[in-house]
Each structure stands twice: as C-alpha cells, then as structure tokens.
C-alpha cells in the first residue's frame, strides 16, 4: 500500500511502473484474503440454500443499493481525480479526492446505520451462518474502506502541499488502484449478500 518509494536512478515513468507492479501484486494477495471468505460463502450456500434465502431477506436492500451507488460514484471521482492530477489541474484533483473521501465516509455511515439496525433486531455474528458471513464479509470490507480513507487523506495532504505534478503522481495512482479494488469487492458482495442470499 505504502510501497511508493522507488529509487535506483530510475526515471519517474520507470518508478511508476515499479510501483504499479507492486500494488497489483498486493491486490493479488487481497483477492486470496477475501477468497477464504468467498469459499466459506459458496460452501455454506450450497449446503444451506433455504437458510440463506430466508435470512438474506432480513437485510436492508435499499440501503445496500444506496451504498453500491455511493461506492461506484466514489470510484468515478477517484478516476477523475487522477486524470485531473495528470493534467496538472491541482484544484480539481484535490476536490475530486476530497469528494471520494466524503463518499467513502458516507458508505461507512450507511454501514453503521445498517449494522445498528441488525443489532437491534438481535442479529449478530454468530446468530447463524448467514449473518456470520454477512458480518465477516462486510466487516473485512469495511476495514479496507477505512484503510482506503487513511490512504486517501494522506494523498490529499501531499496534494495540498503540491507534491504532485503531471510527471509525478504515483501515490495518487496507487491509492486509486487500491480504492477501485475495494469497490470491486463490493460489486460482488452486494448481490451475494443482499440480492440472491
């Protein structure tokens, strides 16, 4: 994640390629980290289809939808931010990144509402396998969102200090790739948990 330091007398373009290789390798590890949970999901869903069906109806679908839209939009603002940074439009870029952070916080806010609702209905991790999976999956994803927010804030600070230019915006791009990945995971979690159970 923070592997943005490069060296060895490379050109900025080479350094960017190195950093990109680093982040994609990191994302590969993330795929397998979530992979464990997806495997659990598939195993138990095949074993207990009815349980998954009845339990998934207890989730708040509209909020899930809202959150999906929020996260997709944050991916858009991130992509726009990077494009702006590459053009040297610093104001626009920082605005986009701030917006991304805002949307990410919004996502967490909605999650907070959802989880409190679940708790108040007596639904906890451990209530049954579906809800265990639900909490573990959204929880792990949530941790990634928090990590993403931290990385974005760091990038924002650097951007404000004028550290980036059209030639050098490696940290922004790296954080962007991570952020899109977080979005990608949600793209699967949303239908799996909310829609088809």
């Amino acid at each position, binding site marked *: 994640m923070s592997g943005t330091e490069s060296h060895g007398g490379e050109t900025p373009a080479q350094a960017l390629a190195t950093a990109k290789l680093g982040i994609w390798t990191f994302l590969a590890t993330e795929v397998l980290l979530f992979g464990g949970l997806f495997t659990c999901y598939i195993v138990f869903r095949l074993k207990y289809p009815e349980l998954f069906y009845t339990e998934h109806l207890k989730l708040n679908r509209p909020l899930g*939808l809202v959150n999906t839209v929020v996260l997709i939009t944050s991916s*858009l603002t991130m992509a726009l931010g990077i494009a702006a940074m590459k053009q040297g439009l610093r104001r626009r870029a920082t605005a986009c990144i701030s917006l991304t952070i805002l949307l990410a916080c919004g996502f967490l806010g909605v999650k907070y509402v959802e989880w409190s609702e679940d708790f108040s209905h007596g639904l906890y991790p451990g209530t049954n396998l579906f809800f265990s999976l639900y909490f573990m999956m959204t929880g792990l994803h949530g941790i990634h969102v928090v990590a993403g927010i931290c990385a974005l804030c760091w990038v924002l600070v650097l951007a404000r200090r004028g550290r980036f230019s059209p030639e050098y915006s490696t940290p922004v791009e790296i954080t962007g790739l991570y952020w899109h990945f977080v979005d990608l995971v949600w793209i699967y979690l949303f239908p799996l948990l909310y*829609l088809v159970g």
Partner: protein
Amino acid sequence: MLNTSSTKAYRTYILVWLALLVLTVVTWLVSYVHLGMLNVTVAMLIASMKALLVALFFMHLRYENRLLWAFAIIPLGFLTLIIGGTLADVLLRD
C-alpha cells in the same frame, strides 16, 4: 495510458460510471424476479461485467502491458483452485 486528449478520458469515465449504475439497477430489478438457480447466475454475470468495467477503465488495465494482465488474472486462477479443491471434498462427502 491516458494521453493529452483528456476530455475524452473524462467522458469515458462518466460513460463507464453510467453503465455501472445501469447494471446495478438491472441486477437489483432482476433479483425480484424468481428464476431459481438462474438468479445467482445472472447476478454473478452482471457483477462480473461491472468488475470488468472497473478493471479495464478505472484501473486502466486496458492500457497496460501483458505482465500486468498476468498479475491481475493469475490470482483469480488460484482463487478457483481453493474453491474447487474445497468443493471437491464438501460436495462429494458421503
């Protein structure tokens, strides 16, 4: 990589975003139609289309070299390995 004609880049991003929104709504609507096992298939197909859009455009995979493609695809292969191996046991246990 994205070059100087970046108004075009902005346009691409926004189009992708719109497509993602549309797909989200579609998958949402389809989930109310009862198709049995097909529901999962459709939902996963749509999710994978969305994922592809994000990876190709937002994550620039479209503009990257073969090495990066390999780095993106190989982990998915290993993901199928762990799922497949586990299912070979779980589904066939007597």
